[in-house]
């Protein structure tokens, strides 16, 4: 199972606590995880990726195993630690910079 950590506001919007666990068949890519996440929680559609273009929203970041995957192609394979559920895939709200 893939573990996904969401920011506070998206956990509230999805009405869940803690981590999300998703069954994602291989190949486990950034796109596949986000598709599975939105399938499970339709209220999240449009909040991480724009409707229509499916582009990452400007102030959303994707982290995994201490790497920033925000700018990586959507077909990028996630590290084995994420695929095996050892490490989570993080959806992060970018720092406000205040």
């Amino acid at each position, binding site marked *: 199972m893939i573990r996904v950590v969401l*920011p*506070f*506001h*998206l956990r509230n*919007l999805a009405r869940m606590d803690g981590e999300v666990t998703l069954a994602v068949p291989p190949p486990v890519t950034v796109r596949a995880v986000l598709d599975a996440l*939105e*399938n499970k929680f*339709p*209220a*999240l*559609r*449009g*909040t*991480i990726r*724009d*409707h*229509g273009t499916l582009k990452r*929203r400007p*102030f*959303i970041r994707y982290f995994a195993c201490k790497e920033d995957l925000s700018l990586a192609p959507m077909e990028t394979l996630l590290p084995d630690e994420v695929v095996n559920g050892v490490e989570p895939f993080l959806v992060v*709200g*970018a720092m406000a910079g205040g």
Partner: protein
Amino acid sequence: MSKIRVLIGTKKGAFILTADGTRKNWKISGPHFAGWEMYHLKGSPADPNRLYASQSSGWFGQIIQRSDDGGKTWNTPGSSAEELKGEQGFPKGESNKFIYDGEPGKHLWYDGTPHPWEFKRIWHIEPSLTDPDTAYAGAEDAAIFKTTDGGKTWKELSGLRKAKSQLWQPGAGGMAVHTILLDPKNAKRIFVAISAGGCFRTDDGGKNWKPITKGLKSPYELPDPDAEVGHCVHRIALHPSKPEVLFMQKHWDVLRSDNAGDQWSEASGNLPSDFGFPIDVNANEPETIYVVPITSDSLHYPPDGKLRVYRSRTGGGEWEALTKGLPQKNCYVNVLRDAMAVDSLDKCGVYFGTTGGQVYCSANDGNSWTAIAEHLPAVYSVEVQTLK
């Protein structure tokens, strides 16, 4: 006895205030959607327990929320458990999908070059007067969307952007459809106002729109003071019994029209400043109107640090200051365009919220005021429901 429900959108969540018809003892619930910018909440006139809310975030974009029980519980429309799967087994989750119709086209950008339309947020939701499942949403970048399924899906009424939108140009506050007025005597007629765009009307249910700006003058904002589009209309209002009479708070100037916007005339009269944002009409007196003068476009706070509502009982021209219960020194808040509303009791209740987080109520046509909420986040919008 009647009950009053006040729906408040703020910079950091929504609040719902309730009281009986005496309007003396208020209960506050909230924050709902804590931490999110709540641009607007409004109830359906056809089903007062049906509420729509626009929830927004710079990080996570636009969310539409709906309540079917007067604000006790909320859902994003189309995302309840039984609605999770579409025909193809793919989630719907389209209640926040605002896609411009066809090729989005371009409007003027700050540097004078054409710039593609980009959806940013919903500023205002106007539920239908007769159908709880139908509502209109005013968007930034300026456009109007319509739902007929309770907010599950939205479709643009793109005729509005055929009304010389290539000449619309955002101001510092963005370019949004912030006001939508439905004519209670003519279901095909809708008025909208757009900051830095102007004022527009459709007479065929939203297919075709035309600018209604004759008589507006903007000598300090536009190179052509009498331009057909581009005026920074801050708010328009009407009384349901006389929908052909419109009142407008423009960037500068308070105006009125007696022919559904075909011609406007100055109504600022003796106001200490005719700059401001909200304007509203007394529910029982169609010629009694309210504004909150603000010092200027450079100084967004009340003149002399005194928070004063001004009332005209003559539909403009002659104004009186209403100060009882309002701070009369050291007050430097603003009152935003969607942050004033009225109830329909006799005497009419008048309500407004400030950027300092106060919500004031007058239960006597504006003669005196009481703070019914304080220390909230900056108030973006105030709507009132009179429940029988």
